[in-house]
């Protein structure tokens, strides 16, 4: 097949490959080993296919590529419209990169209802990719809601003690948040006759939507609420620690690395894309909430006795950076926000894998149960260190680049935002390194920890790609930013107009 042909259907292939695999998996007999291998093959194949996207991506070009646009339902006018730009491209890749690792990390830890687990995981992957590739608002909402069920089931069936509570809380928070988005989408359809993102954006920009000025603020809030719950932005964050602590490792990984990014991606694509003026007007309180999230998340993380909860609150803090960067409306801030999204995906994903590995051996996440683990588990300790440093923002690793860019963007927007945000980096070093010290250094305080085994082959295969990615992203961020930059520039174009309009008044 020629590459041109492939390019026109590649997004469909990448999106639905895992779903097809999941459906096939339903037909396979319950032989756990075969099921694991099959799931791994499907997810790896998806990853390989998704590599087509960056390889043939025209980096200098803004706008959507690999587009496919077919009518799905004629009235209402719903299209199967997919495409990626420099923003969504990397999020798709992040998803396809992490899913095989999730399969690997669950190889040994899931031994009951193996078939259901991998079916749900693969269905979840399709829904996640679909969220990032949809350019039709209806299709977007469709995939957005579709992520809920597999994730809630993963938490509720395969989780720990309070799994049911966590699953329902996760489901209800997200569900109630997103119905407001549905109402906003319906309003937009009623007044433009289209669900197409590009069409609606252009109509709004040219002022051709009747009654828009009166409704714009509510529409902005409708979208924003759905995304803020997902991010989660302070004060909507309380579902996150519960969901993370109770979720199985693979669930936590995808939850932190990809599901949360759906929220920030949504803000960037839809809030900024469709409502630039309202974004501008609301930026002050959004940024304030983001700052509260950064600092509050970090402080709460610091005092957590539970490793997984600590990582969960660190996500609240890191995602605060992303929102801060997005609502700074600067080139650097947005570039940085996207980079933090990717870096946080890799490093926090890896942190959850590492925490899961420990839980498998000791059946606890309590930090006080550990101590001096560096001597029985040297390889584990070294890998953990790399990831912790990446997450804390050490230069040459991936966390640094994004946070630096975000802060420089925040400074450009308003110095005080930058100053307050910068404290977040200090806090993150404090809680992560302190945790590392308590778990790995010193003498072995609990004798049972002496006999804990080091990383197994499967675990190495899951962790090391993350560590390598963290390093490459830290050394050569241009590989990613090259595609991100033009897309962000295009996303910011309406803001230049908003400014000139404001000045003109």
């Amino acid at each position, binding site marked *: 097949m020629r590459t041109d042909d492939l390019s026109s259907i590649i997004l469909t292939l990448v999106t639905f490959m895992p779903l097809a695999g999941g459906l096939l998996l339903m037909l396979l007999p319950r032989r756990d080993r075969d099921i694991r291998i099959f799931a791994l093959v499907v997810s790896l194949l998806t990853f390989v296919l998704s590599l087509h996207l960056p390889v043939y991506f025209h980096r200098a070009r803004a706008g959507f590529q690999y587009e496919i646009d077919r009518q799905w339902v004629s*009235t*209402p006018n719903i299209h199967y419209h997919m495409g990626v730009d420099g923003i969504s491209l990397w999020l798709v890749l992040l998803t396809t990169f992490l899913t095989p690792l999730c399969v690997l990390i669950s190889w040994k830890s899931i031994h009951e209802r193996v078939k259901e687990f991998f079916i749900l995981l693969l269905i979840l992957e399709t829904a996640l990719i679909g969220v990032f590739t949809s350019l039709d608002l209806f299709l977007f*909402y469709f995939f957005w809601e579709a992520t809920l069920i597999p994730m809630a089931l993963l938490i509720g069936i395969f989780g720990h003690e309070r799994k049911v509570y966590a*699953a329902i809380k996760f489901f*209800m928070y997200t569900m109630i948040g997103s119905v407001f988005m549905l109402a906003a989408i319906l*309003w937009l*359809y*009623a007044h433009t006759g289209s669900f197409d993102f590009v069409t609606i954006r252009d109509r709004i920009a040219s002022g051709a939507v009747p009654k828009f000025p009166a409704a714009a603020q509510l529409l902005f809030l409708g979208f924003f609420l759905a995304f803020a719950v997902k991010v989660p932005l302070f004060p909507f964050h309380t579902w996150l620690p519960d969901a993370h602590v109770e979720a199985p490792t693979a669930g936590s990984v995808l939850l932190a690395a990809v599901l949360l990014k759906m929220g920030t991606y949504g803000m960037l694509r839809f809030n900024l894309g469709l409502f630039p003026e309202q974004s501008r007007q609301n930026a002050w309180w959004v940024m304030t909430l983001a700052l509260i999230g950064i600092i509050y998340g970090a402080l709460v993380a610091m005092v957590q006795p539970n490793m997984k909860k600590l990582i969960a609150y660190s996500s609240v803090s890191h995602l605060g950076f992303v929102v801060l960067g997005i609502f700074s409306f600067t080139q650097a801030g947005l570039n940085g926000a996207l980079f933090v999204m990717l870096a946080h995906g890799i490093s926090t994903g890896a942190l959850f894998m590492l925490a899961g590995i420990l839980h498998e051996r000791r059946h606890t996440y309590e930090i006080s149960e550990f101590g001096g683990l560096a001597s029985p588990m040297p390889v584990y300790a070294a890998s953990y260190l790399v990831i912790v440093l990446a997450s804390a923002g050490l230069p040459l690793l991936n966390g640094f680049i994004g946070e630096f860019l975000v802060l420089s963007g925040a400074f450009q927007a308003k110095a005080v935002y930058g100053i307050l945000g910068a404290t977040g980096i200090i806090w993150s070093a404090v809680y992560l390194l302190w945790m590392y010290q308590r778990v790995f250094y010193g003498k072995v305080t609990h004798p049972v920890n002496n006999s804990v085994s080091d990383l197994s082959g499967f675990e190495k295969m899951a962790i090391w790609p993350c560590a390598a990615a963290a390093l490459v992203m830290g050394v050569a961020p241009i590989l990613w930013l090259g595609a991100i930059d033009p897309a962000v520039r295009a996303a910011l174009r309406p803001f230049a107009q908003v400014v000139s309009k404001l000045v003109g008044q």
Partner: protein
Amino acid sequence: MIAGTSMAGMMIATFAPAFSPTLPLGADYVRILPEIVLSGFGMIVMLLEPLLDEATGQKPLGRIALVGTLAGLAATWFMAQAPGLAFWNMVQVDKFSVFLHVLVIAIAAVVILSSYEYMAVQRIRAGEYYALILFGVVGMGLMSSAIELVLIFIALEISSISSYVLAGFRRHEAASAESSLKYFLLGSFATAFFLYGVALMFGATGSTNIGQISGTLQASAVPLLAYVAVAFLFVGLGFKVAAAPFHVWTPDVYEGAPAPIVGFMSTAPKAAAFAVLLRIVFVINLHAVFWVIWVSAALSMTLGNVGALVQNNVKRLLAYSSIAHAGYLLVAFAAAPQLGTSAAMFYTAAYAAMNLGAFAIVSHFSNAGERYVTLEDYEGLGRSSPLLAATLTIFLLSLIGIPMTGGFFAKFYVFSAAVNANLIWLTIIGVVNSGVGAYYYLRIIVMMYMREARKEVPVTPIPGALSVALAVCVAATLYLGIFPGSVLEYAQDSAQQLVRRALPKTPASAPVSTVSSTL
């Protein structure tokens, strides 16, 4: 009620001479062919019942009834070929009535299929069970094609009386007798309201033909009597569709009635009553009706969902859920005629598919004497019978309104119609409700998948007939969720016909502007 029917007879007698005295044409009979066929099969079942052995005769009777519904579907095809008026403007065959005929007859077929096993397990031996289902469908079919208020009333009574009897078929259970009696008493009260409304409407406009009423009301100032009449009509129909504040009977009746019949009652008569309501609401286009429906929709959604949150009996839970769904449907009625009609039609179809499926599983699982109907009984079902649990999960997800299922598009179209009519607040009440409503459906899923069974609940293998019924429901739910286009387009076509006829002079956009100006 006896007084009611004789009154109706008198009314017909008073204005019958106004119509042409010629005999009905052959085409007239084609236009009620499904009703004729179904009544015929119902009578065959009744006649054969005493001749067959009580223990072994149930199966053949059920099969005859099933063949009857299939023949009814075939007859609907012939009916669809002959659109137009019949029997002196009393019956109208259009796409709208064809759609509802197909829907209610298909519902009856699925209910009959899922009753075979239920009847055997519950040791209910009565052929009239199947006959009553068929007669009920005759009434419902007629409700959807009648455009004459008196005929609508008669059809409503045919459908209601068979439902009353069917609700009491678990004769040995006190709950079933209670259910039947409660349904009967409150139901007759509600139909009396309806009849009173018909009489007042006759007094206000001098006609019981919907088209003529519409013409009279549009031509001159609307008399106060017409408002009262519409209010009475709404009370009667609101009871039938279990819309708040006329919903109080629902949980008790659903709890006591046989489970397959609950599936039937919550879908087919409701669809028919909604059809009547659609004709009345859009034809008698009074502004006051809009607010009545607005309030009723908001109340139904809220009370239904809040009530369902605390239920432990699955049948009661689904009863409250059906109140909430009636509320979502009423949202469509408050919206613009054309979009609202098609959204409501799609909703009845999707709701029928998912709710029938859910009740089929509930009735299979409940076992002899309907012993296992509490939430706790569903614990660990995901492990003990994964296929049954997965099927029920599909129906529940559809009831929540998750993508890929018919329930999603149903809600989507309804709210879309509401936003189009600028009913922002009603939409927000609706979407928040559908978010809250997710909780109690989720509870069943949680029980099945995330809890271990604490007690032994025997699950018998699914018999052939039931699996066919379930397969039909699953296929319909998924089909409506993935390829909603064809059904929706048909609904839109029929809505266009209906509305164009109903509002001959006003352009389609006029009601929208009147609605939006009040908000």
